[in-house]
């Protein structure tokens, strides 16, 4: 197993504390923790693509980086309206 795959697994383990906040915290806390998790997952996608040596899968982190910004703004908008 390459260092990139080990790093991807460790990054997923690093997500667990933020996941606890998402599960147990209030809505604002969960939105903030979600943003941290989403950023980690984007990097996990890049690490998996590098670890398995697949060039085509490097588009996924690029798409993810764009989509987490949009999804984050959606959650922020809902939070602003008191949902």
């Amino acid at each position, binding site marked *: 197993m390459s260092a990139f795959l080990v790093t991807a697994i*460790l*990054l997923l383990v*690093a997500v667990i504390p*933020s996941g606890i906040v998402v599960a147990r915290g209030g809505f*604002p806390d969960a939105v*903030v923790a979600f943003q*941290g998790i989403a*950023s980690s997952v984007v990097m996990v996608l890049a690490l998996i693509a590098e670890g398995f040596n697949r060039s085509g899968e490097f588009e996924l982190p690029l798409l993810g980086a764009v989509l987490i*910004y949009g999804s*984050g703004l959606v959650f922020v908008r809902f939070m602003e309206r008191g949902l």
Partner: protein
Amino acid sequence: MRGIAVDIFLGLGVAVAIMSSIGILAMRDAYQRVHYVTPISLLTPVSIGIAILIQSGWSSRSAQTWLAIGFMAIASPFLSHATMRAIRIRETGDWRLTLPKQADQAEEPK
């Protein structure tokens, strides 16, 4: 030598992510937690991007990775600002320290 540099940058990225994630869990409220999202969305991607750049060299892989990192680096501060603003509006009804009506009342002569 290249492998050692890759391992160092990957380890740095993971260490920052783990400490920031623990920080998100340990802080009291969402305002404090937002500060710990920034290292995950800036320092960890840059560190991992450098590792991929060292491993792959100047290729489409590293270009796409750095494009994603660049977008995250630009978008993350905007998202953090919007999040803090939304939390304040949710708690107080307005993002300003004093509402315009209150400011007018404060400026009126007695």
